[in-house]
């Protein structure tokens, strides 16, 4: 996995780069590292944001200096290698790949020279991992998308796509928890409400989780509480 690299990210943050490219093995180790940190969180540690190949660490400079933080992180990273007994949470997410509602299905199929059915099969056949959280509360960056489905972002982003839109861009796929502007191609609609819930604003996904999509029909979408909206 190579050497980790530390870079200063201002006076109270560090960026820890763990590898050149994302991988399942790296993600497992980041997941293990997060668990280790959760078990033993020092008072100076404010935030750890994992993303693909890096951790962004925010600390309190009044309590600790960056070299101490680096040493602490390096030692936890070493320990994380032996933590193998982890089982990521698995989510099955129902998706209505409704071509009338999601015109991008057609566009992606045409771009890739395949039938819409194949696009749906390819998208729902794989188990994805959560590589990062961000963009909006409840939004998870899922990867890796099958090479055969990879398309660039839209040249002109849409000003609005509905909550629950399931979309793809390059090697990633995601579900939009709320209505949003978006530059990704929308393949389907998810009937589940993925917005933060309750007092604790809890969200469904965590980094390292596994996600698979299950194709459902229009009737099931509506039964699960989905609201149909044409993506235009």
């Amino acid at each position, binding site marked *: 996995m190579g050497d980790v690299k530390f*870079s*200063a*990210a*201002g*006076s*109270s*943050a560090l*960026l820890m780069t763990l590898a050149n490219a*994302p991988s399942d093995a790296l993600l497992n180790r980041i997941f293990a590292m997060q668990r280790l940190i959760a078990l033993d969180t020092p008072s100076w540690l*404010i*935030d*750890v*944001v*994992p*993303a*693909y*190949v*890096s*951790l*962004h660490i*925010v600390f309190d*400079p*009044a309590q600790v*200096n*960056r070299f101490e933080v680096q040493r602490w992180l390096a030692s936890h990273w070493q320990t994380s290698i032996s933590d193998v007994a982890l089982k990521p949470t698995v989510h099955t997410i129902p998706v209505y790949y409704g071509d009338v509602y999601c015109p991008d299905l057609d566009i992606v199929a045409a771009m890739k020279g395949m039938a819409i059915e194949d696009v749906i099969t390819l998208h729902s056949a794989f188990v994805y991992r959560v590589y*990062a*959280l*961000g*963009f*909006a*509360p*409840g*939004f998870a*960056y899922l990867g890796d998308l099958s090479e055969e489905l990879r398309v660039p972002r839209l040249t002109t982003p849409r000003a609005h796509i509905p909550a629950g839109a399931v979309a793809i861009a390059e090697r990633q796929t995601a579900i939009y928890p709320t209505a949003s502007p978006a530059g990704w191609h929308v393949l389907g609609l998810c009937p589940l409400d993925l917005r*933060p819930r309750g007092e*604790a*604003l809890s*969200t469904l996904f965590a980094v390292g989780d596994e996600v698979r999509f299950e194709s459902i029909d229009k009737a099931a979408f509506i039964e699960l509480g989905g609201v149909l909206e044409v993506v235009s």
Partner: protein
Amino acid sequence: MKVSLHVLKPGSCCTVQDLGRQGVASRGFSSGGAMDQYAARAANALVDNSADAALIEVTLGGFQFEVDGPVDMAVCGAEAPLQINQRYVESWRTHALEAGDIVTLGFAQRGARLYVALAGGAVVAPRLGSSSTVLRESIGGYHGRALRAGDAVELAPRELSMQPRRFSVTHRHRFGGVVNLLASAGPQWQQLSREGRRRLVGDVFQVSQQCDRMGYRLQSDEPLQSLPGMLSEGVGLGAVQLPNNGHPIVLMRDHQTMGGYPKPLVLLPEGVDALGQCRPGDAVKFTLLSNGEARRRVNTYQQRLQRMPWEYVS
């Protein structure tokens, strides 16, 4: 007794804020919090509130409200005319309001943000340990949104009759000239060419129209060297992003938690506060500090924030 603030004119953007949420970026939430933490803490100190009491952040002024009971108030931050019942009064000072008093914050002449603290502090349902509003996420503050005319913000009960306090002129904000933004190196500083570095910490930039609680876009006559895009990584408060168009974007209190643009600099907390008081057209420049210097400045500023230099009005 219970006292509330009733909004008469909401101005362009008024939100309930405190010092912000900590430790929520890992879950994708913005920290929020007062854009100018010095002025926010100053206003709270003047009415004897705790530093993290919820107060009202007013962008560029135009805010008017009435109180329905006696309460102490202070306004700090941008330079804007302040009136109580159409009588001009001083900012950066405690004022005792009576039931029915109407407070008007005029349009800011210089600076961008004003903080209205009322004794006791605003009472809103805390979210993830903070009362700060993040509009983009519809979270926190007054029902997750900006204040509107007709809203009533309840204040925590408080015993009356404190001796008024003030900040001497030397401890108030001074505006004017090119704003010097103190920064230290960001993760991609090394990627800039010598010329790129020289321009980033030498040029004067203008604050563009695109500046809000999430980020400030800056402009210079000629775009800076652009750097290749990267895999998204965690981004922090004050990070100076350099997108392909060569015009920097500084991440402010409501910033997103992930980004794929290179970040050659990161502002110190005092730089973030200073930029939070800038408005479109203001001139700014970056000053790069070594890690050691930055650490000392951060500590000094932290001490300044914690020991607010107010004095009693004699």
